[in-house]
């Protein structure tokens, strides 16, 4: 099966099955993501999912608006596109 692709506007990354979370992939590639609890309840890592689907191991507790995901506790389930904001 072909690797799932994680696109962030500027970059395209191949999802690494050995990683536990999407956050790890983004961090390994030095992309601008925030985190605090890394367990799905504080909401600091929240980003917008523009296309595709993700899967949570446990349903997260943090507030999510429509179209938002928590990379600290999910993995991609299809090719996905994220809207990452780049601070200066």
């Amino acid at each position, binding site marked *: 099966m072909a690797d799932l692709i994680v696109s962030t506007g500027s970059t395209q990354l191949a999802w690494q099955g050995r990683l536990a979370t999407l956050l790890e992939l983004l961090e390994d590639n030095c992309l601008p993501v925030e985190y*605090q*609890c890394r367990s799905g*309840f504080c*909401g*600091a890592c*929240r980003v917008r999912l523009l296309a595709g689907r993700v899967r949570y191991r446990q349903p997260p*507790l943090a*507030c999510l*608006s429509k179209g938002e995901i928590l990379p600290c506790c999910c993995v991609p389930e299809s090719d996905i596109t994220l809207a990452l904001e780049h*601070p200066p």
Partner: protein
Amino acid sequence: MAYTTFSMRHNDQLKEPMFFGQPVNVARYDQQKHVIFEKLIEKQLSFFWRPEEVDVSRDRIDYQRLPAHEQHIFISNLKYQTLLDSIQGRSPNVALLPLVSIPELETWIETWAFSETLHSRSYTHIIRNIVNDPALIFDDIVTNKNIVARARDISRYYDELIEMSNYYHLLGEGQHYINGRYKEISLRQLKQALYLCLMSVNVLEAIRFYVSFACSFAFAERGLMEGNAKIIRLIARDEALHMSGTQHMLNLMRSGADDPEMAEIAQQCHEQSRALFLLAAQQEKQWADYLFKDGSMIGLNRQILHHYVEYITNIRMQAIGMEPAFEKRSHPIPWVNAWLASDNVQVAPQEVEVSSYLVGQIDATITADDLGSFEL
């Protein structure tokens, strides 16, 4: 409507709003209007810890060796946190329980406030260990003007809500002559007081703690006051959960999904809510100035903490659908996050890499395959 501890009126709890419906009668959790509060309760219970489990005895030696300006930073933060948790250990119960009308939220409020009492007890645990006379520290909390200024802004919204709901429960809506003055009591007003109170609690738990958290972790990065840092880490984990609970309440209100009138009120209070965030950010920056008045500490200074306050404030505002107030920036003290991450919180030193303390996590789904090897 007068409050009753057990209403005999049969109602469908699934149709009650979070607040101002019929007071909760049967505490039942087999059905949930807002299942998130049940999830928060479970999570909070899985976090359970006791201050006595953390050995703080080495901190005493560390503390005595700290230069005076660092002792000032350490002790002042403890005082401030003691104040915040004194408020949080009682106020959600006193202010919110008489108004709540669904059982899962009622129990979340009680669970939340209970965990705050652990925080308060842990400050005594820490303080008792580092000084001979804890009274010197505790007594200053109500006289220190840098602390008192903020205490007023924090307790104000709780107090107003409590006062108003007392009148409401006693006298109902209408114009009442109370203590020589006419007072207008309306449900609408009361709902607004509740919304602002929750907003101010959210600001408290989402922003006000973080300057002291950062200082505690900065000491520990140097191998100092590590017992304290371990406790603060547990407190920080609880606080992030509390914040999430309040954000859920606010977002449910804003959306109108729970009580359509609340959505209107949220809109009306938008500017006031923003102002609450801005005021807190400003006060926390002033707090950083007060902490560092006689000198900085390694890894932190006023400027960095100001940026941290702005960074945190932006994230918290966005979580409840507000435009961030400050210039966007990346995390000014990224090492703090390693301490705030709850996937590596540990209580006892021998417990390496413990993830959150999940108890009772038993897989209750059974399929025919699981029973394949059984014979009757």
